């Protein structure tokens, strides 16, 4: 049950635990840190976190299955989240999402065939006045209509091609 975390992740994990009077409280911070480092949360990771926080593994597993942001499988290299909720839908986010799907030949929740992106159609991102709103990895993009979505998609593909 050992996982390969970067030294800075380990340092941040130890720091996070000190923020709470009860170790278990650090579960969400640790899950975030591990997922950011390794890309997803594997069973080994859950067991490792559980041991670190001195709780049974189920106490971590039940968080991973509840909170939408944690994932048990790897995703594409880039993570595109399109907001689905009302204000964005009123300004065309269903079309925006379709545009990304078409460009990357994939569906929400799936990894694209080339492994480059995962698209998700998510709930409100709290930027409703400038919809449709899209988050690409950690960056927020506002007013992403179909044309803008197409530009962003082309840029992501170009970056992917440059890497190869």
């Amino acid at each position, binding site marked *: 049950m050992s996982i390969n975390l970067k030294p800075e992740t380990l340092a941040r994990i130890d720091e996070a635990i000190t923020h709470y009077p009860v170790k278990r*409280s650090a579960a*969400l911070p640790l899950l*975030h840190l591990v997922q950011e480092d390794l890309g997803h949360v594997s069973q080994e990771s859950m067991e490792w976190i559980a041991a670190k926080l001195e709780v049974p593994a189920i106490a971590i597993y*039940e968080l991973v299955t509840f909170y939408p942001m944690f994932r048990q499988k790897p995703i594409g290299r880039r993570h595109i989240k399109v907001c689905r909720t009302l204000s964005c*839908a009123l300004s065309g986010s269903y*079309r925006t999402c379709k545009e990304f799907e078409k460009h990357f030949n994939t569906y929400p929740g799936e990894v694209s065939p080339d492994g480059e992106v995962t698209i998700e159609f*998510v709930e409100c991102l*709290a930027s409703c*006045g400038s*919809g449709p709103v899209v988050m690409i990895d950690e960056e927020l993009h506002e007013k992403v209509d179909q044309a803008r979505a197409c530009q962003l998609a082309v840029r992501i593909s170009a970056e992917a091609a440059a890497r190869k």
Partner: protein
Amino acid sequence: MPEQRRLIFQHIDEPGYGNDLACYVRNGGYEVLRRAVQRKPEELIDEVKKSGLRGRGGAGFPCGVKWGLVDRKSGKPIYLVVNADESEPGTFKDRHIIHKDPHQLIEGIMITCFANNVKQAYIYIRGEFPEGARILERAIAEARAANFTGPGILGTAYGCEIYVHRGAGAYICGEETGMIESIEGKRPYPRIKPPYFPAVLGLYQCPTIVNNVETLCHVKHIADMGGEAYSKIGTPNNTGTRILCVSGHVRKPGYYEFEVGKVTLGQLLNEVCGGPLPGRTLKAVIPGGSSAKVLRFGERFKGKRKVGAEMVDYDWGVEDIPMDFDSLGMVGSMGGSGGVIVMDDSVSMVDALANINAFYSHESCGQCTPCREGSRWMQRITGRMVHGVARAEDGALLKSVADQIAGRTICAFGEACAWPTQSFVLKFPEEFKSHEEAKKKADGRAFELA
């Protein structure tokens, strides 16, 4: 056009205004905290009571009353939990405070903590704000290095640590007891009240204050000008300013800050936000976040209300409603989170409701059967209608499901998910009636909302 009054958002749109400590201090930042720690904590609580400040997170509960309920005799530590979950669809004010003026929030937090003898505060920020979390962490470190937080602040014996706690994409974490469970490292299942009133049995079973980000920023301004002066801003029982977030079908959506009750819904949408999109007319508006009951343009609201000491008749159209907690309550909706969602005549109310129902069925935590099952059923029925399969009895069926959720659940999510369905079906009965109508709409049309 009614003038904005910017208290919380005074600086955020100024060119060159940054979110670093130096900029905040240059603009007079932390001077209020400096003065506050020289006063007696009880005096500060009194100022907040006098101010009439009502919570900006959703329920509009008086902040001073909430602080007054805190169990101070238990001998246990008192915690502050800052609600930065900003999860109610249509709301995007806390985002701007956090990203553009984090020190204003930290100053408000520290004044609140000092007033309530809190030694540890957690900012619960939604997982979808990774940059916001980093900004807050940096701001806290800056403030700590300058002795505004941490041990022994500003030469006093009083100390307090602030930590940032990130959520992970679940709406129910915005509900205060769900939030507390989430900080404890558990699933965010809301707790039953009683006995779990946070003020008595909150985080780690200790007395806990939960306040919204915007509420805590107001505390800073109350400590600055005094409760009495603050209470003169806005209207009686609806004091101060409030940030209104407008989204959907107007020409200029965005955030606007007004004295509470000094702008009507009509002025807000038609003057401030530039009115409907070209060639369109306004059809419906949800005035306080997606769970608030919808208002239909053309409906009228009549009754008696208190103005000063007198009762006077009112007869309002949607445009005439003052944007304050009490007036929006009187017309059967609520001020809620301040998120105003506008829909024009291009929108099918069935589509819009299906979109909202999909949100709530995704977000129910699943503890209570009426909410877990009912939210799913409402989603399935409206989802089916959107795709052209509607039955004459669907309106009645939807209402019956919604009626069996509200009032029968552990937390207010039950009402939040029932109110849209109840109000949409009541106010737009013609759109929920006919199979022919649904079929006609569904044929040859892209499903753009659901």
